């Protein structure tokens, strides 16, 4: 089995976000990037399938920014067999353009399974998994929380809500959007990542960005007012504890 995993760098969620001068994007000059957390789960699920079936795992990313290299080397250190980056300076691409690039590249590779994260927090359109599947005319299942290889395909568990899940048998090849791997994503020592970096086995493929289709334009971005509607408690932890105990009393629970 051949498994391809799509990896996307996103602005580090622990960092403070600031807006660009024209107010239609983030100020990206000093932003740190990390791997989208759901993609880490997609990679983990692929590596678990590799452990079980001996599958070959390749990881794919767009662009040549430093964080892309870092993410791909980390994936190699964790056990991915191949890492490939597509394109050079692609500029801003919408989801459909991104999906087209991946579909073109992966169409030639013909993996049995394409895994993505369920969503990326910085994307207005989203569902790249489904768009890649549509472009390649493959079946897809989003919000997957576990897979099991079986004869003639793969069995997947899709999460609905309230803890209700549904099981599906999916014919291969297929595309899955992973919400959570069966196990928490594995850690890898920094030294192993550095070693992968020294080995430097990143493949590069040239791709051309498609013409953007008319779609959706951001007019304004805002950072919602902190504590809009909330009464903010001032002072140190002792003052906060006093205030919170008072709130609990008024709510009739302390």
């Amino acid at each position, binding site marked *: 089995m051949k498994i391809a995993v799509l990896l996307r760098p996103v602005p580090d969620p622990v960092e403070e976000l600031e807006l660009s001068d024209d107010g239609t994007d983030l100020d990206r000059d000093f932003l740190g990037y990390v791997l989208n957390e759901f993609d880490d789960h997609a990679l983990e699920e692929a590596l678990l399938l590799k452990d079980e079936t001996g599958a070959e795992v390749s990881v794919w990313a767009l662009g040549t920014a430093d964080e892309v290299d870092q993410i791909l080397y980390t994936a190699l250190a964790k056990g991915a067999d191949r890492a490939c980056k597509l394109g050079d300076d692609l500029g801003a691409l919408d989801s459909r353009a991104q999906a087209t690039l991946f579909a073109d590249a992966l169409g030639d590779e013909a993996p049995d399974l394409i895994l993505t994260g369920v969503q990326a927090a910085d994307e207005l359109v989203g569902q790249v998994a489904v768009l890649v599947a549509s472009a390649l005319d493959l079946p*897809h299942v989003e919000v997957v929380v576990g897979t099991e290889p079986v004869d003639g395909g793969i069995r997947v568990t899709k999460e609905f809500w309230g803890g209700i899940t549904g099981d599906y048998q999916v014919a291969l090849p297929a595309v899955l*959007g992973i919400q959570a791997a069966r196990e928490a994503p594995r850690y890898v020592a920094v030294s192993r990542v550095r070693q992968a970096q020294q080995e430097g086995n990143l493949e590069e493929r040239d791709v051309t960005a498609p013409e953007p289709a008319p779609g959706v334009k951001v007019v304004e971005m805002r950072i919602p007012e902190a504590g809009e509607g909330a009464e903010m408690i001032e002072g140190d*932890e002792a003052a906060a504890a006093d205030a*919170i105990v008072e709130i609990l009393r008024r709510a009739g629970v302390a």
Partner: protein
Amino acid sequence: MSDNVLVITEHLEGEPTEISFELIALGRRLAADLGGQVEVLVAGDGAAAMADRFGGADTVLVVDDARLDGFDPEGHPRVAAAVVEARNPKVVLVPYTSEGMDVASELAARTDLPLVSYCKDVRAADGLAATCQLYAGKIEADVEVEGDRAVFAVLSGAAPAADGMSGGAGAVETVDVGVDLPGRVQALGFTQPEAGDVDITAQDVLVVVGRGIESEDNIAEAEELAEALGGAVAASRPVVDQGWLPKTRQVGKSGLTVKPKVYLALGVSGAPEHVEGMRDAATIIAVNTDPQAPIFGVAHYGWVGDLFDLVPELLERVES
């Protein structure tokens, strides 16, 4: 093209979901601005039996097809796309849920319509526009559609469900879209969650830990506080995905919806998928080191600071 709004409804085990009615309510508002009507699509095996639930719509389009057993990630988007082609609505509203995630973008791709996701509001008075939540709720974006038709994937809470339950004609129309289903995805059945040790939906007080709790060992401190307050500990998704607490303790979109008297959130950022499960709690108190955390947007009271400094102080006061 018509001036209508088409709402793609969803259902689980014969019951339409709450968000389906929220979208009909939103659709009514948009249809009034567009001078059109609200049509809803109810698709599935046994869909006809649900048609009379949609009196909030002007027209109820029913696709009752035995092949669409449960939810079919391959069939449902194809049926929705065929109905969009046949009815030509100006606006298509899809719930941004587990089902909607399989439906919305395939539908958009098949019909070549632009898609806007994470919408908390959609407007149609002056061109199509939406307000979207990005970066896990940390950023709000106002967007405009460049054409005159689009698909919007809408978060729960965009309009009151009650407003979408009546007020239309509810005329039922059975449609035969004759789609071809390749049958590559086969439903094997649903699994209900196992009952947990604690029912978090029945508690007066929930002490809720998010990723800010940092490690499994630190949960004990939250347990102690919850116990002292006569409540229980609940959690956000990452805490459960790490295996630190069972799934039955998860609040949110894919967890449980809770409405306790007091919801004390410790190190929870307040992503839209979490907020969906707790925004109706009577008193929400949030503690977070990040003053920008979106949880402060839904909380009634907030303190910017370290939960590990606060919890011992709170314990001391509550236990005495």
